[in-house]
Structures are given as C-alpha cells and as structure tokens.
C-alpha cells in the first residue's frame, strides 16, 4: 500500500482525494486518460471510459503508462481484472487506420486483418465501405469518413484517423494583443493558451470552460492558429453579433471580413457567423441553407455552445470530417444524453478545467450561491395539492409569494446590476410590473433587445427581467446578481448557464451572487436539487436560507 491520493474503484471510477499532498501530481498523471466527472470540495471523481482511453492512445500514451500511473498513485491494490481491461481496451485502438492512399483516396487499412473482416461484415457499416482493394485495405468514400468513424467507435474498434485535415482557403488572421484602435494591450490567459494548444495538437475537439472564462477568445486564438476561412455556428443572432464585436476588437479582422448568416442577413465572407436556427430551418421538408457548409473551402468550423447542437447539425457535421472542428461549451451535460455523439463527430474533449480552479486564479468572479426557500400560503398549498401532475411545477414555480422575496433580494443589492431570470412569461410580466423593470423575452425584437442590453450595460437600467432567451451567449459584463425564479424543470445545464451570467470577473473583484427562489415542500425543491447537482459537483455549495430571513427587518449578512 503506497498511501497515494487515488482510489481505483471497480466500476472504473477514480476517486482523487484533493487534500492529499500528491493530489496535484496525480491529477496531472491521470488527466490524459480519465475524464473528470465531478469536482466537489473533497474528493474529485474521474472515470475511465473506453473513449477516454482511446483518446489517450491517440495522444501517444500507451497502456503500460496508464497502468503504471494507476498503480503508482493508488492507495489500495488495483484489481487485476481492471488492469487487464484497461490494457485490452487500449489495445483495440488503431488496429484500423483511416489513411489517404495515393491511388485510391481515403482507405480503411487494417493492421489486424481479422478485425477488418469482423467490421466489414457488420450490418452497421453497410454502405459505408467501398471496394476491397486488397486483404488489408478497403476503400472508403470521403463523405462517409465521419459516419464510419462513429460506427467503428460503436463497434469498439476505433480507427486512427491518419487522413489529416484540409488546410482550407488561407486567410490571414492575427490576434491583436497590442490593443487595436487605441485599446489596451492584453494577452491570452494561461488556460486559454493551453486550451488552444491542446485543441490544435489534437486537430479537432471540444474545449470546456466555465461561462465568463473567455471561450470566444479561445475561438479567436484557434482561428489565428488556423489562418484560414472560418465558419462559426452560434445559438442566436445576438450571440452572433457579440462574436463579431469581440473578433473585431481582439483580432486583425475588420468588419468587412466578417459576415452574418442569419434570418435577417445572408452574407458569406471569409469569416462567417451563422445561427443554428437558420441552418436547421426547412422549406418543404428540405434544409435550404446547407449549401453554406460548401460555400467556401472552410479551414475551421467553430461550434459555440456545442451542448446545444441540434440533431440535424450532427448529421451535417458527419460530412465535415476533413475540416478542423472546435466545439466550445461550459457544460458537456446534455439533457438528451448525446454527449457521445458530440465526442465522435466534433471530437473528443481536449481541455477541461474545474470551475473552482479558474475561480481561484481570479479569471472568473467568485460566486455565492444561495437557495431561498419560500413557504407557500395555505391557499397556494391547497391549489398546489389539487393541481394536475403536469401543472404542479408551474404552480409551485410561479407562486405569487415569490414576488416580495425577489423584491427584497433586489433591494438587498442596491448598487448592483441585477438580472431576474424566469421560465414562465406570465410570471415575468408580474415581476416586471412588481419590480418596475423592463422584460426581454422571445418576442422582443433584436433591436429592442440590443437597446435594453445597452441600457443595462451603461447602468441606465439597473434591473432586467429576462426569459429563457437570456440563457446563452449574451454578454452582460456588469451583472453581479442573478435571481432565478423558475426554469426548465430540472435542467442542470440551464442552471450552470444562468450562474455563468454573473461569473464574468468584476472590475473591482467583488463577489457575484446567484439566488434561486424555490417553494418549500413542492416539486420545485426537488427540481432545484437536481438542477444544482452539476454545480455542486463543480464545487459550488449552495447555502439555504429561509425567505423570512430575507424579508425580515434585520438582514443577516450572507458572506
């Protein structure tokens, strides 16, 4: 027994005790092959997955090294069966290779002939493989590259992709770190630099960073690395505009070089920003805007908020395997459980950092999470008790009792910019009237939205009530307090995104506050617990306070 910091579990999770003196060294050793699953305060959980092990193989780590570091840091004897399993899993990678043959183009080549025979017979690969060139080689149509890789992964024989990436149409892009148009000089943060390097070394993949940690800059730096025409896919038009602003400010790109491809405008320029929505819009059952992918010889495709990638885009992405792809996200938790598809089509996770680590480095604001429990009135309880099952969450989440609590919370931070976030339009209107604050919702026009956001940014408007549209990619630099009143049931990633609204570092380094107001003893509390799970796993401990303490005459300090 070495007394190391790591405990290897037989279900292939690794428990890392972070207070142990060797914890940091151990984290460095296991990070290449194990996926960080949870990082609460004392014990971080990593998981060994076939995908993670194969990625490690792809990055040049061998099974012997993995087994060695497991044994070296493990506190207890590691089961023989698990070691054998790790070695066998890693051995499966690379028995098949996707390569460019000078004569036949893209081919699937086998280092182990029996594996090729096995996969060639599989029904899942029907139609993806072309003619058999010799005993060890089968031709592959270039358009099937992504689907084939995906299918081989599912069969458990991941192919090593040696076919490389196309360079795309060259276009000069530089980071303007000296400051542009009189701006202040700046530099990439260390973790942003590491993320870009990890991505570029791997070719394609996903970078996971907390909201407010500057994912846009990672994208910009990747573009500067690629120096090629780039297609950027974003969730909505506002987010697209923001990307454009950021790119103009931080890179050598000018306004003329960046095009917007949205419902309003259809520009195709060396750098084009398109929304998921316009790409997935259909006319008579056909996707009309797919030509965009082929409109230019893109050298890089950037997917913003990749955890929201709609299913049709998955299919298109399968055709883009020869182009470099960068996915950006704060949480890879997908409520539809399709994380595996993101990995196989965009690429594996190339960079990930625990939120608390970045917070301790001062790159995101330290946040105080508070759950405020509201006791419903008897009348509300009675109507909740008799409501239909599907109505219950709405009843509990939109209880009127929450209004004074929200007002009290807003008043508690008189000098801060406050966002009030909700999921139900009726409730938002109530809140708007009650707090006398403007509302941004789905039906608000882009023009009006930008006006309100500008006003909020300038401090003209102190409190803003927003609906789900504000979940993603709106840049509200000085929001320091967010109050959540209702949401999309138990969505963990929504909670993380909403917290992200206040994580952007404050000029004076003060603390951010995230409040979630829930109705006690209702399904609202259960959903809240579920929503908080991801953040709790990231080490954010929620403090629970009673609404009466908030409303009461003496306000206790919550710091």
């Amino acid at each position, binding site marked *: *027994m070495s007394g190391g910091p790591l*405990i*290897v*579990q*037989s*279900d292939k*999770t690794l*428990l890392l*005790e972070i207070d142990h003196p060797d914890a940091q060294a151990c984290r460095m050793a296991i990070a290449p092959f194990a996926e960080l699953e*949870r990082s*609460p*305060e*004392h*014990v971080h*959980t990593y998981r060994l997955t076939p995908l993670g092990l194969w990625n490690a193989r792809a990055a040049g780590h061998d099974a012997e090294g993995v087994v060695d570091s497991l*044994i070296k840091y*493990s*506190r*207890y*004897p*590691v*089961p*023989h*069966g*698990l*070691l054998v399993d790790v070695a066998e899993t890693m051995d499966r990678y690379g028995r098949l290779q996707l390569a460019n043959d000078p004569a036949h183009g893209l081919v699937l080549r086998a280092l182990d002939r029996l594996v090729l025979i096995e996969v060639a017979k599989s029904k899942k690969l029907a139609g993806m493989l072309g003619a058999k060139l010799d005993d060890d080689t089968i031709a592959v149509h270039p358009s099937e590259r992504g689907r084939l890789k995906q299918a081989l992964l599912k069969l458990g024989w991941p192919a090593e992709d040696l076919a490389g990436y196309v360079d795309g149409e060259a276009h000069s892009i530089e980071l303007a770190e000296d400051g542009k148009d009189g701006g202040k000089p700046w530099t990439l943060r260390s973790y942003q630099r590491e993320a870009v390097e990890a991505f570029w070394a791997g070719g394609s993949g996903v970078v996971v960073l907390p909201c407010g940690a500057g994912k846009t800059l990672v994208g910009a730096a990747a573009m500067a690395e690629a120096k090629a025409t780039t297609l950027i896919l974003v969730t909505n038009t506002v987010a697209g505009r923001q990307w454009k602003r950021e790119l103009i400010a931080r890179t050598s790109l000018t306004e003329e070089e960046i095009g917007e491809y949205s419902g309003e405008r259809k520009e195709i320029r060396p750098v084009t920003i398109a929304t998921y929505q316009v790409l997935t819009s259909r006319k008579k059952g056909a996707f009309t805007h797919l030509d965009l992918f082929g409109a230019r010889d893109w050298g890089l495709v950037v997917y913003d908020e990749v955890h929201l990638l709609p299913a049709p885009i998955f299919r298109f992405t399968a055709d883009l395997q020869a182009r470099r792809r960068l996915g950006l996200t704060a949480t890879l938790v997908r409520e539809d459980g399709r994380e595996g598809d993101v990995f196989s089509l965009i690429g594996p996770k190339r960079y990930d950092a625990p939120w608390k680590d970045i917070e301790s480095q001062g790159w995101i604001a330290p946040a105080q999470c508070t759950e405020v429990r509201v006791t419903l009135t008897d009348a509300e309880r009675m109507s909740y008790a008799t409501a239909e099952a599907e109505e219950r969450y709405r009843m509990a989440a939109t209880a009127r009792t929450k209004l004074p609590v929200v007002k009290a919370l807003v008043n508690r931070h008189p000098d801060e910019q406050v966002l009030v976030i909700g999921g139900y339009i009726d409730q938002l209107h109530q809140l708007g009237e009650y707090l006398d604050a403007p509302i941004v919702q789905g039906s608000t026009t882009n023009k009006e939205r930008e006006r309100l956001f500008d006003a909020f940014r300038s401090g003209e408007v102190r409190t803003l009530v927003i609906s789900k549209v504000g979940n993603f990619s709106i840049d509200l630099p000085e929001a320091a307090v967010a109050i959540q009143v209702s949401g999309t049931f138990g969505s963990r990633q929504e909670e993380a995104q909403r917290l992200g609204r206040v994580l952007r570092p404050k000029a004076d380094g003060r603390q951010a506050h995230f409040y979630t107001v829930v109705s*006690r*003893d209702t399904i609202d*509390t*259960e959903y809240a*617990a579920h929503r*908080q*799970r991801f953040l*709790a*796993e990231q*080490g*954010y*401990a*929620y*403090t*629970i306070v009673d609404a009466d303490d908030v409303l009461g005459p003496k306000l206790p300090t919550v710091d």
Partner: protein
Amino acid sequence: MTTSLADHLRSLPDESLAALLQLRPDLVVPVPADVSALATRAQSRVSVARALDALDQFTLLMLDAARLTRDAAEQTTSTDAVLAMATAGPHPPAPTTVRAAVNRLRALFVLYGPESALRVVAGVDEVSPYPAGLGRPAAELDARAAALCADPAKLRRTLLAAPPSARAILDRLAAGPPVGSVPAGALQAPALGAEDDLPPDPTNGGVPTGSPVRWLVDHHLLVPVSGGRAGVTGTVELPREVGLLLRRDSGPLGPLRSSPPPVATAPREPKAADSAGAGQTMEVVRHTEALLEQLAAEPAPVLRSGGLGVRDLRRLARAVGVDEPAAALLLEVAYAGGLIGEVDLSGATTTRHGADQQVLPTAGYEVWRAGTLAQRWEQLARAWLTMTRQAGLVGQRDDRDRPITVLSAEAERAGGPAARRAVLEVLADLEPATGPTPEEVLALLDWRAPRRSRGRETAHREVLAEAATLGVTGLGALTSYGRLLLADVTAADEHGDDPLGLRSDAESGEASTAVRALDALLPAPVDHFLVQADLTVVVPGPPDPALAAELEVVAEHESAGGASVHRVTPASVRRGLDAGYSADDLHALFRRRSRTPVPQGLTYLVDDVARKHGGLRVGSAGGYVRSDDEALLTEVLADRRLEPLALRRLAPTVLSTPYQVGRMLLALRDAGYAPVPEDASGAAVLARPKTRRAPARVPVTTRTLDPLTTPKLAMPRLLGVVEQIRRGDAAARAARRAPAVVRGGVGRTGPAPVPSHSDALAVLQQAVRDRALVWVGYVDAHGATASRLVRPVSIGAGYLRAEDDRTEMLHTFALHRITAAVLED
C-alpha cells in the same frame, strides 16, 4: 518362461512390497488375496495406466525405449540397452537421468527383473500400443513391406523418391502416432485409362501423383491396416523401421527433453503480482456478497433437471455487474463453500417455474459475512481448490445437446481438484512472481504428466482463468498468499490419516498463514467518511461492519471498490427514518462519522424529509363504528359494558376497534344499541340466518366389491410363474457346473495358473458379439473370489455389463476385478 512377475514379487522383502503398494495404492483396493492376485492386478491394464499417469514425459519415453529394445525371443531388455537408445539422438541426456528414470519405472514395477534382464509388465502394451510413437515392425504388418525394410539401401532410395506431398505425410506419421486414417477410396487404383485425368499435384512440380497415400502404399512405405477400399474409411500404419529411418535427425525416440521446458517470461516484482491479486480478492469477495444478497432478495428456483436456469444466472450476473461465466464460477464456489443451499418449498407449485426448491444463502453465509476480507476470501479459495465442479462447463452443451446449467449435476467433474492442484503446482514451482503465458503452463503440464494432461487443455486453461478471477494469481503469477494456501491445502490432504479432523485449522480458530499474508496486503477498514456538497458520501477504504450497516440504511450505494461512494437522497433518508433513526440521530451520525464539515444542504435535506415523515398514519382495525351523531358516539365510547371492545376515537364521528364486525354487532346489540353493518362502499348489509349442510357424497350401495374374496389367477399368468421357476432351477443347476478356472477359490486350490487378464477380456468381447453365456470369475469388494454365469451385454468405460438369466438382472463388473472368463459350453 523365466520368472513371472508373481514369482518376482514373492521373492521381495516385505518392505519392498510395502513400497510398491504405497506407490500404487490402487492395488490394495480391495486387498488382494495373495501374491498371485497382486501380480495379476499389478499387470492389469487399469492399474498400469494409473501408474503411468503420474509419470513425466521423459520417464515415459524411457519406458518406450525399454519396450523398443526388448529382444524378440526372451522379451527382456537391459538398462544399458535403454541408455544406448536414449543417447542415440543429437542431444543425448545425461546417463544419470536415464538411469534415474529407469529406476523410477522399476520401483513402480512397470519394469521388473535384474538390470541385465528387465521385463516390461504385460499391461503396458495394452495401455499405449505404439511405443515412442513408432509403428509395429514391418514383419508384423506385411511381408512385402518387411522385404523392403530388410534392404536398407533400397528403403533409403524409395524414401528419397517419394513425391513432396507423400513425404509430408511420412514426416507427420514419423512424428507419431504412426497410424493415420485415409478417406474412403483413397487406396483404390483409379479406373484404367483415367490415370491421365488426375489433377496435377502442385507439390510435385505439377506432375500428377494421384493420391500420395496410394503412392506410399504402392511402394510399401505405408501398410494399410483396415478398410480403405470403396466406401470405407481406412487406416494405414507406418512400419517401425521406416519411422526410425525418418527420425535419424532427432534420434529414435524423437526429441528428448530430460528437464521441464523453460519459461520465457521474466519474473515481475513480487509486490506487483501480490498487489494485483489482492485487488482481485477484494473484488471477488464483494461480488460474491452482492451475488448472494441478490439471491436472498430474489431466490432462484431449482430447475427440474437440477441447477439454476440460464435466465436466473443472467439476471444475477447483470445485477452484480459481472459476466455470466464469472457469476457461474462464484455461484459454484459459494455452493461448494456452503454459502448457498437449496430450500424445499412448502407449496410445490408456488413459483412460476413450478419448481419445488429454491437456492438461498445459508446460515453459514452469515458467519462468512462477519469474517474479515482475507478470511472470507480464504473460505472461497479453499472451496474452489477442493470442489469437484468445473464451472467452465456452464453454458456449454452436454451429450444430449442440452445446456449445462450452473449448480447442475452435469458440471460435476471428479478430476477438478487434481487439475487445479496440477496447474497451481506448476506455477508454484516457478520462481515467485513469474507469470507464464497459458501456453507455457500447458507445455509444462504436458511435460510433467503427459498422460494426465492430454485432452484436458481446455480444463487447464479454465483453471488459469478462474485462478485469475479469484485472485489466487495476480498478473499471471501465483501470489504469495495463494502459494501459502496451496501448501496448506496440499498438507491437509497429505494428512489423510486424520479422519477425525483433529488438526483442522478451522477448529482451532486461528487464522491460517495465507489469511495473515493476505491481511497484510489488504487495506485496513475505516470508520469515517467524507461528506460533500453534492450529497455524496465517500468512504476512503473498506468500511468497518458498523459503518457499512449504517450507510446501508441512510444512503444509496453508488460505486464500490477499494473505497465506496454513497449518495444521500430523500428516499434514503426516509429509509433511515423508517428504520428508527430520528432526525437528530441522523445529524449526529453524519457529524460523528464525517471527517469534513457536514454541508448545509444535507442538514436541510434531513430536516425536510423528517418534517414530512409520519404526516400520514396507517394502521389496521378490525372494525369501526361511525355515526353522524357525535353525542351518540361519545355515549358508546363512555359505555362501560363496551369496554372489552377497546374502542378508540379516530375522529369526532368514527370509533375503531381491533375486533371483528360480528363480535362488535353482538356487543352493541347486547348493550341496547341498534347498529347496522355496512360494506366497503358504505351500503347497509342485511343478515339472514343460514341453514348448514354437510358436503355431498356418493351413496354406500354403489360399492360392490368384497375385499375378502381371494383374487382369481388367469391361466397365462400361472404359466409365466411356472416358467420363471423352471428357469431359476436350470440356472441353479448350471451354477454348480462352473469351470475350475473361474471358481478359482485361490485359498482352496492353491496357486492356480494365473490366466492373463487380457485373455479374459478377449473371451468377454467375443461373448458380447455372440450373445453367448460366459462364466465370469471376479474379486468382489471384500477381496473374495466369486463366479457367476452371465450373458455379457456390453464392455465399456472399464465396466462389463452382463445379464444374469437366472435372476433377470443386469450386473456390472469392474473389468479390473475380473480374474477369468470362460465360455459356457
């Protein structure tokens, strides 16, 4: 005829005879009546086969050398002749090793007589017909082949002329065994004129050779032994002289190896192997416990044909998270270790399978569970080492193509313990922490006891896999504690003269050395955990039993292994409250056990659930009284005459009682109230007296049979009885006519000529074919000689099955007990 084995044995001192009996214990079961009987037994095929089974490859080859060097007339050979043949090859073994091998054979009395005139006992030739993989001498096979072999120069020329494809066949047969089967018609000459139609032979430069076997037979290099003509599959044999000539490069006995084959794998660090094995032992114990818990939660029915159904095995395996072979192994081991057993069900058809037995954990399981990890593992590993089961058979199909199920009789293999012992001893003899490949282990086994390991390669591979699964081996090497356990079990076995179990470790209550060695490798139990904000509870090591019991109640299990992860959920807190913890108890529990501050979220969770806990109350009552008139109910409640009803007020308008409605009605009516019973929907129930009747039955007059009349016997039945008596009579008369040879009575007639055991076998085989009556003399279980007139039915698997016409019974005789057989004339 020179001295027979019997004479030789008779001349030995007592100690030497005792030594022989110790080496070949099967000779004394049953105890032979005299030395002649002992000699007969020692030469019998079965006994010789047993003696040879334990010998290594080199010694067996030396025996073959002795057989090959026998001189034709005297049938004797000498140590020198054996030595000469053994050292004829290119890599001659040291003469001392050869002599040692010969002495081993002499000690076993497989070879006997003085060194200059060694004789081979008769049974050897029956046991293995082809010494050193060489065929019979040409003279015994075919005159023309003999003529060819008599002329070495011509033989050499013929060999060199053989086409490549034919030469390949020769080389294969020369390596042994020297007989091969040929397809039907291969030896037939092609039709006249069809010679040109033969396909070109690529191995012969495109020149058609026809069938290479036919070429060899035509040139007398191979001799057809049987069949080979149209429609019959035949066999051909390579004459000994040709085989020896072909082996001129490797020596007459083929490649010789006087020491076990070396292992290429270098030893690892002993700690690595031990550590991997120890990790695996934790897994095995945990999986076994999970499996048995699962079995306790949902017992598996025993199939009519024995064993557990495939579906149950799959369910158990899935629930525990192991694959089916591993689950089957653990179940078998748990059964062998007495941790699970069958229970009879009272109602025979209560389960959906209609089975009347279930498999459940036994009381022994509770004892096992209380032990330490190492003790629990030892119990499992010991059970595995000694169980006569082959778990690897589960899932395969038996002779009747039915799947073999776990715990069924079909997976019983008496050779199991010996096979495991053999494999592990191979590993134990290597340097510590050497992890040879399965192939190397099989090669070693093949060298150590070729006769025993041949055909058991699959079983041996399974043993290796099972040993790895159970953590007896780690990284392919025998672990230090596994070595101790093996030594312990072997020692216990050798103390076979301890029938009362006086030296048993289990009785003394002291941990065995293996347990102590394993204990040192396993993590020590911990009594604390870490609680985190995401409501997970991490126990950083194996929990001590008290902590495990607490966690089992208040948290859901999430991940197991060296440590364990649990999650506190509303449901688990509720379970804790149901189990009698109060909210304060739970807070105290988390505070006491946690090394880290208890997060606020957990405190709130416990309080929230506790607040709602018990908000609804459920109970049972025998009946109730309700009334809209609260005053009336108060009067009933206060009525002293109704005190025996133990009425309790549930609500202003409802009283409840533990007694049944009928009794309550009577009591209320007696007390002068006018209650009306109501049913579940609240409607009034009317009562009317019911007339009672006995159940319907058949009138007595329909039964006419008088039980006292004597039964009538029909004529055919009587004739049958007479015939039976007559037949018995004839057989009894015949029994008096048993020939002297068979009657044997060794004690009475003095040293009778000992007939060869193989003669008896020949007679019996003929009798089976002819369905003839035979007198069989045999030694019964008490060592007495008896004889019986029977009609043999079949011979096989070491047993003769025969009918006794007199008693019309089928008898089974062990062949090695049969001393003589004579045809009835």
